C-alpha cells in the first residue's frame, strides 16, 4: 500500500473527544512532573514494589517463554483474520441473546451508549474499570447528556472524586499516596467518618459503603472487556476487587464497550492469557475475580446485554505492518512498571489515557502520529519493556518505526525542512563519505578551544554552543583529543589496512 492510499483510510480516532491527546508535548509535561517531589516518591515506591512482585511470580513459571510465545502467536493469528472473528463473535453474542453495535469511533460509541442508557430509562450508570471507555471519554459524554457515571473500581473512584486523570493503566491512582486519598475521601464522600485514618483497610471500607448504595440502585452498568471469545460469544473481565462483578451481575442492563482487538478465537485461548495477565499485571498468580458471561439468562444476571465493538483508530493500526503488533496488547502494564522514563515522569506526562511504553506506541497510532508526535521519542530505547511484555510486543522497534513515520510526515507536510532535518541531512551527507568525515573531524577538533588545557577543568568542556547546549546543561562534554583514532592508525601503521 502506498502512503497515498493509507491516507484514504478515514480511521484515526477523531479530535475533540476522548483522552488520547495531551495539551503539552511530552518533554514539557515531563518537566512539570519531574519537579513534583511527592509524585516522584509515590511512583518510585509503587513501581519498585510491583516490579519485584512480577519478577517473583514470573520467575516461578518454568515455561514462561513458551507462554509468551503462545500469547504472541494467538494474537498474530487473531489480527490476520480479525474481520472474520468479529463477525463470528457478533453471531455468537446475538445467538446468546445479546445485541451487538459497531462503533467506528469515539463519537459513535458514546452516542450508542447514551441512547441505550436512555432507552433503559436510567439517568445514572455504574462502571467497571475500563480503558476503552476512558479512551473515548464516555463519562464526559454521558454527563453532557445528563447521565451520571459512577466509577466503582477503588482507584478509578479516587480519580473521579478528585477530578484527576488516570496515570497508569492498572493502578490509575498510582501517583497518589494514602494520606492524599484520606484527605480526598474526608472531603468528598457523603457521611464519611470524620475520624477516618489513612489505614488502607479503613479507606477501602469507606469506599465500600459509598459504592454499595450505587450497586443496589443502578439499573445500568457499563464495562469494558479483557477478552471476547469469537467461538462462544463469551466476554471476560479480569479484576481484583469484586466491584466489577457487582456491576456485571446486579443491574438489569449491561453495556460492554470492547476494542475490536480484544477478540480471541477460542475459549481455550483464555488458558494462555489468564496465566500471562495477572502475573504480568498485579504480580499475582491468579487475579481474585474473573467474570465470564455469554449473552443473557432469565433470572440470572442482566436481562439485556449490549456489546459495542469499538474501532476508534484500530483499523489504522492494523493497516501498518510494523505497528499492528501494538494491537496484541492485553493492558497488563508490565511495561509501565519497568520503564525508567515512566518511573520518573508518571503517566500524566504522556497526555493520553494510555501512558508508558505501550502508550508511546499506541496513542500516536490511534490518533495519527502527528497528533502525538513527541510520544515515540519519550523513550531511551532501553528495551526493558520488550523483555517483560507477556505477548512479546517489540516496543523499541515500533518506537523507531513511528519516529520514521513522523519524520516522513514532516517531510511531506512542510515546505521548509525543520532545523533538525537540515542538521540530520548535513550529518548524513558528511558521514556518507570518509573524506568529508575526516574534514568534519578536523572541525570538531577545533572544539578543543572550548576546553581548558590545564587546571581543574582540564579535559572537560563546561558549555557547548548552539543545539549542543542541551548536552552541557546537565553534563560536561569531553574535550576532543589532539589526534583521532584514524590519524593515529595512519601515523603508526603507515595507513596500511
Amino acid at each position, binding site marked *: 500500500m502506498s502512503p497515498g492510499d493509507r491516507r484514504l483510510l478515514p480511521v484515526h480516532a477523531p479530535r475533540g473527544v476522548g483522552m488520547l491527546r495531551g495539551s503539552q508535548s511530552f518533554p514539557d509535561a515531563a518537566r512539570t512532573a519531574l519537579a513534583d517531589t511527592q509524585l516522584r516518591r509515590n511512583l518510585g515506591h509503587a513501581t519498585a514494589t510491583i516490579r519485584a512482585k512480577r519478577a517473583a511470580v514470573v520467575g516461578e513459571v518454568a515455561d514462561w517463554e513458551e507462554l509468551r510465545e503462545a500469547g504472541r502467536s494467538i494474537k498474530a493469528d487473531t489480527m490476520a483474520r480479525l474481520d472474520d472473528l468479529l463477525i463470528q463473535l457478533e453471531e455468537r453474542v446475538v445467538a446468546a441473546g445479546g445485541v451487538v453495535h459497531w462503533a467506528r469511533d469515539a463519537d459513535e460509541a458514546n452516542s450508542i451508549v447514551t441512547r441505550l442508557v436512555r432507552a433503559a430509562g436510567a439517568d445514572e450508570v455504574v462502571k467497571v474499570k475500563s480503558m476503552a471507555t476512558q479512551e473515548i471519554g464516555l463519562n464526559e459524554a454521558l454527563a453532557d447528556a445528563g447521565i451520571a457515571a459512577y466509577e466503582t473500581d477503588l482507584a478509578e473512584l479516587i480519580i473521579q472524586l478528585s477530578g484527576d486523570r488516570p496515570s497508569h493503566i492498572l493502578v490509575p491512582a498510582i501517583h497518589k499516596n494514602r494520606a492524599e486519598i484520606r484527605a480526598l475521601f474526608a472531603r468528598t464522600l457523603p457521611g464519611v467518618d470524620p475520624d477516618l485514618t489513612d489505614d488502607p483497610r479503613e479507606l477501602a471500607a469507606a469506599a465500600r459503603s459509598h459504592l454499595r448504595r450505587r450497586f443496589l440502585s443502578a439499573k445500568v452498568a457499563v464495562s469494558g472487556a479483557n477478552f471476547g471469545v469469537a467461538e462462544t460469544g463469551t466476554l471476560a473481565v479480569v479484576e481484583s476487587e469484586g466491584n466489577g462483578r457487582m456491576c456485571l451481575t446486579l443491574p438489569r442492563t449491561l453495556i460492554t464497550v470492547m476494542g475490536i482487538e480484544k477478540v480471541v478465537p477460542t475459549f481455550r485461548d483464555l488458558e494462555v492469557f489468564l496465566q500471562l495477565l495477572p502475573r504480568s499485571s498485579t504480580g499475582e498468580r491468579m487475579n481474585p475475580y474473573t467474570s465470564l458471561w455469554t449473552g443473557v439468562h432469565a433470572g440470572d444476571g442482566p436481562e439485556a446485554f449490549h456489546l459495542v465493538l469499538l474501532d476508534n483508530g484500530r483499523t489504522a493500526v492494523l493497516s501498518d505492518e510494523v505497528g499492528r503488533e501494538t494491537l496484541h496488547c492485553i493492558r497488563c502494564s508490565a511495561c509501565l512498571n519497568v520503564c525508567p*522514563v515512566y518511573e520518573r515522569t508518571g503517566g500524566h506526562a504522556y497526555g493520553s489515557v494510555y501512558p508508558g511504553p505501550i502508550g508511546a506506541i499506541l496513542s500516536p497510532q490511534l490518533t495519527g502520529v502527528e497528533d502525538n508526535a513527541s510520544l515515540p521519542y519519550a523513550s*531511551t530505547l*532501553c528495551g526493558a519493556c520488550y523483555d517483560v511484555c507477556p505477548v512479546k510486543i517489540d516496543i523499541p522497534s515500533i518506537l523507531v518505526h513511528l519516529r520514521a513515520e513522523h*519524520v516522513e510526515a514532516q517531510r511531506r507536510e512542510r515546505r521548509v525542512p525543520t532545523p533538525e532535518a537540515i542538521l540530520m541531512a548535513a550529518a548524513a551527507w558528511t*558521514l556518507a*563519505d570518509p573524506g568529508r568525515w575526516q574534514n568534519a573531524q578536523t572541525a570538531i577538533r577545533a572544539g578543543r578551544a572550548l576546553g581548558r588545557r590545564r587546571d581543574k577543568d582540564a579535559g572537560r568542556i563546561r558549555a557547548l554552543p548552539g543545539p549542543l547546549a542541551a548536552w552541557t546543561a546537565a*553534563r560536561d562534554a569531553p574535550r576532543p583529543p589532539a589526534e*583521532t583514532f584514524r590519524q593515529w592508525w595512519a601515523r603508526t601503521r603507515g595507513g596500511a589496512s
Partner: protein
Amino acid sequence: MNRGSSVALFVTCLADTLFPDVGRATVAVLERLGCQVVFPPSQTCCGQAHVNTGYQRDALPLVRNFVATFERYDAVVAPSGSCVGSVRHQHAIVAERAGDNALAERARAVASRTFELSEYLVDRLGVTDVGATYPHTVTYHPTCHSLRMLGVGDKPLTLLRNVRGLTLLALPAAEECCGFGGTFAMKNVDTSTAMLADKIGDVLATGAEVCAASDSSCLMHIGGGLSRLRTGVRTVHLAEILAATDGAA
C-alpha cells in the same frame, strides 16, 4: 580457540573522534590475543543516531557505506554494544524501508559477522582471561543495548573478574538505563538528567574509583555527569581495562 584470526575493526564514529584511546585499546587487546587487526579507512558511522531519531532515509547511504566497507571481512569487531546492535537489528530494516532488498541481504550477511568486543573475545576466541592488570576498584554498567539487544549476558563481567588486581564492585540497579538514549539526551534533557542522577547515585554508592561500560556513548553521558558533579569517579571503557597490563588507563 580461533587465534591468528583476521579482524576488521569498526572503531565507531564516536570513539574515532572523541575517544581514540578506546580504539587503541581494542587493537591492543585483539593483537595481544594473536589477531591480525585491520582498520578499513573508508568506515564512518553505523547510522544509529539517524535511525533512532527517525531519519532512516538519511541513514541509507551510511548503511550502504558500512556494508561496502566491511562485507569482505570474515569478522568485524566494534567496542560498542549499541553500534553493533544497530548493525545487527537496524541495517536490513533501513534498506528494506528504502526498497533495496539486495542491500538488506548484504547487510544481514555482514551483521552475522559483526561482534561487540566481549562477544568476540568470549564466544569467538574462547578467551576469558586476556592477561590484563588493572589494580583499581571498578563498578560495571552493563548498558541496555549490550544487555537486551545483543544479549551479551555476563561476558563483560567474566572478563573483568579475570583481570589481575581489579576489584569488581556490584552496581545497584545495574540493568536500569543511564538515561542517554542518543538524541533522547537532548530532546528529553530533563528526564535524561533525572535518570542520570539515579545512575550516578548508584555508582557512588559502590565506592568504586572507576565506572566501566562497553559503550563510549553511555560513558560520555555518565562521565559527563560524574565530572560536572566533581565526584572524582572516572569512566573507563571495558577495552581500556582489558588492554591495561601495567595498571595504567
